[in-house]
């Protein structure tokens, strides 16, 4: 039981995927124009993450080591397709506003990263809790950024007017550039407070895919990181 609580805390605080690991930046920037979208994307990713962690953990002794990456990709892609069907059926409005970013959950670093780093080595129960923790951490990250952007850009939070009438919405914040500015502000605050994070450990930026991320210990094999160093 203790281990499960530890996994939850790890996902939400210690290794928070958005603020500490800086993984899954594409959806983080793309769908956070409103808090509701951020929350929806976070929960969708959580659902996929929990299921994929559970299935990969169950199959960890069956999947041969050499083909594990393609196997994981197939599992995750199938789950994403199922989740997409569910959204189309029950939450068509959310499905429409998230659009292409739902199928793109397949290439979200967090999911393959957790599969490789945790679920493939641990039992089902703790993998599920790892997925829940990471998913909640990601959801909190997206919702917070969404709240910031919606508040500054439209004066609302979750579609409810919050700001006084005199407040003139700064609409740039709900447009594309606002995503970069809000994230820049948040990482700068993180740097200022000297919090542990991917942005202030030198050279730890994700360089193209999770495989070469030094911060997440997911990855195909060492070959790629060697390649990458040669390229620099």
């Amino acid at each position, binding site marked *: 039981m203790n281990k499960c609580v530890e996994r939850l805390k790890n996902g939400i605080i210690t290794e928070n995927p958005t603020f500490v690991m800086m993984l899954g930046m594409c959806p983080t920037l793309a769908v956070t124009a409103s808090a509701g979208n951020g929350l929806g994307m976070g929960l969708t990713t959580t659902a996929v993450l929990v299921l994929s962690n559970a299935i990969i953990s169950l199959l960890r002794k069956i999947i041969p080591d050499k083909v594990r990456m393609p196997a994981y990709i197939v599992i995750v892609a199938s789950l994403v397709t199922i989740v997409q069907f569910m959204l189309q059926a029950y939450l068509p409005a959310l499905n429409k506003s998230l659009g*292409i970013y739902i199928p793109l959950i397949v290439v979200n670093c967090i999911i393959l990263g957790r599969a490789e780093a945790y679920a493939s080595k641990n039992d089902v129960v703790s993998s599920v809790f790892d997925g829940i923790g990471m998913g909640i951490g990601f959801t909190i990250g997206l919702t917070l950024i969404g709240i910031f952007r919606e508040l500054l850009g439209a004066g609302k939070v979750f579609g409810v007017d919050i700001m006084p009438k005199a407040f003139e919405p700064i609409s740039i914040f709900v447009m594309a550039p606002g995503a970069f500015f809000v994230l820049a502000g948040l990482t700068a605050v993180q*740097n200022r407070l000297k919090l542990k994070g991917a942005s202030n450990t030198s050279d730890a930026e994700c360089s193209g*895919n999770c495989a070469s991320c030094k911060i997440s210990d997911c990855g195909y094999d060492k070959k790629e990181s060697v390649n990458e160093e040669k390229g620099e």
Partner: protein
Amino acid sequence: MKTLLVILIGSALVNNVVLSQFLGICPFLGVSKKTSTAAGMGAAVIFVITLSSLITSALYAFILKPLDLTYLNTIVFILVIAALVQLVEMILKKYSPALYKSLGVYLPLITTNCAVLGVALLNVQNGYLDKGSVAIGIIKSVANGFATALGFTIAIVIMAGIRERIEYNDIPQSFKGTPIVLITAGLMAIAFIGFSGII
């Protein structure tokens, strides 16, 4: 011809893949420290996305659609892209060592670049393959893929150029590293909004 031009300008500049669609953010932030590296990455991305647009749209038009399996497109596309990148790497290594030397190091980084899968899915979503002749649909998809990748290259090369200059500037301590890069990206995104009146 006119539609192709609209697709080219629309995907490369107006709906820039990085700055307005947020696909491929990771390489955009990670491999943009030097202009030469950024250009190499851009070239590799153009190569892979153009090729994958051709193959995925052909697969969609000739196999998935006739068999009514279009709902499987995410699974099929990601597997095809992963295999394609590996294959391209092997072929280049064997037959064109010079090209492999300049592009090879970037190829493994592209597999999970979400722009590649994103473009393949957008080609389908834009409905290029739904009406009219299949050949024209595939040509449109390839044009869209090429233009998107070109947009990525434009963005990442400009970004690298700016970052080389930023190196020598006095940046507030807390903004060093990722934050200043994100601010730069935001300013670039504002500049690219200027293109939105073109079409």
